[in-house]
């Protein structure tokens, strides 16, 4: 798989497209000694160092470069979650679709399983054959049967470990804000460790409602090993049920929370009487 990728990357870097334009660089992972880090390969680089593991949110790199270099045209070696990240970032003008070529490759079945990934392959699939979607996170699977009390216990016990390192926010490709509400003392009063429950975590959860593409980066980078993706998978489920919106699926779909009911209507209940809007199931 990796060799094929390297070969294609080499071709793409030397190719000129129909308009005579060449890619300025290909964003991918590079191994330097023991470490692997995001890198921009240019024509002529030694592609043997190009890697695809461990996963980093490469679209953040693309976004940073697009913002700082207005004319740069990049390629990116991307997995399914990278492409989905690109869709939501492009939708919010963080990446310029005109100046990006996606070189998609499919994740392996193990990787799909590890990430409980529903779509372990990108639409712009160039290398690899799509693997079967991973299973649902077991906690999420049984979540409907958990009572409020059980849920409270579960999360209190998890969130108490939080050291407020903001890693989940920093690593997340979709958290591209300059200033962050989680650092706003109006919502999260400073000076507490184990940040106030549940505000600190629900703020990000609410912001990720129409953005989280389930790339699992936040969970992997959380020093306290808090199963954040359970929270976000449940949030994505509610979003899809209530507004029929799946982040990363369609570049043209409007951000659901920002537009009117006419543009993206409520799928459940009647907006004219909010009491009719049903809650997700809760265990008794």
């Amino acid at each position, binding site marked *: 798989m990796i060799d094929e990728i390297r070969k294609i990357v080499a071709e793409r870097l030397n190719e000129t497209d129909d308009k005579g334009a060449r890619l300025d660089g290909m964003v991918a992972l590079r191994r330097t000694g023991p470490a692997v880090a995001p890198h921009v390969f240019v024509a002529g680089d030694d592609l043997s160092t190009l890697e695809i593991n461990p996963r980093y949110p490469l679209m953040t790199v693309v976004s940073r470069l697009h913002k700082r270099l207005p004319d740069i045209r990049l390629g990116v070696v991307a997995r399914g979650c990278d492409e989905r990240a690109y869709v939501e970032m492009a939708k*919010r*003008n*963080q990446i310029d679709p005109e100046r990006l070529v996606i070189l998609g490759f499919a994740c392996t079945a193990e990787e799909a399983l590890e990430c409980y990934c529903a779509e372990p392959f990108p639409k712009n699939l160039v290398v690899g054959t799509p693997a079967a979607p991973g299973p649902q996170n077991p906690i999420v699977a049984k979540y409907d049967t958990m009572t409020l009390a059980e849920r409270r216990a579960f999360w209190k016990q998890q969130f108490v470990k939080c050291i407020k390192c903001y890693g989940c926010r920093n690593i997340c490709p979709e958290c*591209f*804000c*300059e*200033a*962050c*509400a989680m650092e*706003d003392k*109006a919502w999260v009063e400073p000076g507490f460790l184990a940040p106030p429950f549940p505000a600190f975590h629900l703020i990000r959860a609410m*912001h990720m409602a129409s953005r989280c593409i389930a790339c699992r980066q936040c969970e992997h980078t959380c020093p306290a090993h808090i199963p954040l993706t359970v929270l976000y998978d449940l949030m994505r489920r509610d979003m899809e049920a209530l507004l029929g919106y799946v982040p990363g699926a369609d570049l043209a779909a*409007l*951000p659901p*929370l*920002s*537009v009117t009911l006419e543009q993206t209507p409520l799928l459940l209940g009647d907006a004219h009487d909010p009491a009719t809007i049903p809650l997700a199931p809760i265990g008794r």
Partner: protein
Amino acid sequence: MNKLIIDGAEYQAQDDQTILDVCRQNGIEIPTLCYHPAMEPYGACRLCTVEVIRHGWSNLHTACTHPAWDGLEVKTQSPAVYDVRRTLMGLFLSRCPHVPVIQNLARQYGVTEPPFATDDPDQKCILCGLCVRVCNDLVKANVINFSDRGIDRQVGPPFLEKTRDCIGCGACTIVCPTGAIDIVLEEAGVYAEKPLGPTAAIYVPSLQAVPRVPVIDTDSCIRFRQQDRSNGKIADACGVCQTLCEANAIDFDQQDEILDLTVGSVIVATGFEMWDPKKLSQYSYGRSPHIITGMEFERLSNAGGPTGGQILLSDGSKPKRVAIIHCVGSRDHNAHAYCSRICCMYSLKHAHLVRDKTGAEVYEFYMDMRAFGKGYEEFYERVQEEGVTMVRGRGAVVDVLPNGKLRVKGEDADLGKLLAVDVDMVVLSTAIEAPHDADKISALFGLGRTADGWFAEAHPKLRPVETNTDGVFLAGCAQGPKDVPDTVAHAGAASAAVLGLLDRGEVVIAPTVAEVNRDDCVGCGDCLLVCPYTAITRVEGKAQINAALCKGCGTCVATCPSGAIMALHFTDDQIVAQIDGVLAWA
């Protein structure tokens, strides 16, 4: 300019004028039958023959065709002329003995009996050719023309058969001096198109119209109908109104224009509509011609109305007893709970009119006489003095008796007992309500509606002409029932409010607007989608708010994930402070 002497006096004439033109312009009476100002002179009836003296030679010529040359002397009443006209009228009268126009003209020249035997006593056509010319030259439908020759000459469609080309415009019936042509309405066939009949396509809508100028009904106007029928090939049919309009104020090319006006403010003065009394069956509205609404009574007593202002029953007789019922559909939970405010006073006026015009007994059923205005009470007393019987109680039911009389049943609160009165006419002072399309208007201008359906004013007491939407004002009954003085005052206030905005150059807007901290904004664009007033635009990748458009709703403040948008009022801190404040107090 030519100079000519007519009957001894000198007149001026243009080169293209005929003797008849000059005479008609200066009020010299010359009889004509086959002449029409909008058409070329034809010279068939010869009635306009006058004596023309030129270079000493006197000849008889038809005034309608003879040019008004310079130096002519014309005698319009000389004996020779009189003889010619007299003989001509004899001939015409013999041809058409029973045509009034001919009889009158003949009488002017001393011919009372037809000098010769009449072939066809019903003959009305004098073959003047006006109908043929109007049909061919003006309407350009080319339907009728002369056929046969000499004494057998007659007018008709080809082969005197029905033709599909006749557009039923009725022009021929209008120009025919003797009424020999009339429009026959056929069920199907030739006149399947909208038959105009002999009414004109240009008319003044009503005497009180503002501005009181004529309008053209393009469905009936021949010019437009020919344009449609020939899809543009015949574009200049008729145009008689244009040729005869001295102020040449007629322009056929005017089009309805839909003007997109960008205005600063709008005054919604959409008024009211009459509530339909059929909705409550107890008034039996519609079951007798003598049960009429107040509006219909106004039309009846209007001098320009169908009866010229007389109050009459359908058989033309004057009513002897009239009942007037207040609060029909008002102050009634089955219709409108509110009081329509204006009915009491106009009902009193109606009572006065009935007394004044017919002397009939008047019974006025009212619950409370709301004569609140200046001079209203005095009028109420005066009407009572005029002998109107005031019954304090709601007129509950109106029954139509077999003999056509109307029985009004109600309660007399003063006497404390039920009452029934048989009258000839019942006037229902019906409620007024918001126009049927008020929903569309409120959606268009973002107007709220009060429970009673009228548009919602910003504040019932303090801001009666403003609405919650800046720049949109209300005037008149759109905001709620009011009589003329109140409407005028209300409208004046609305205009003042608008004028207040006009002359100020810049406008003071509410400070509650939002502002973007460009450093924190990452340009994600969610706020652009949220703003209902499109006040937020993307400038160099970052959001920017146009303060003039921003109404301060704060939706964008709540939408911005990074809190880059601050509202100048109702800031997050202020609200949080209130949260802490109220909770601390409780």
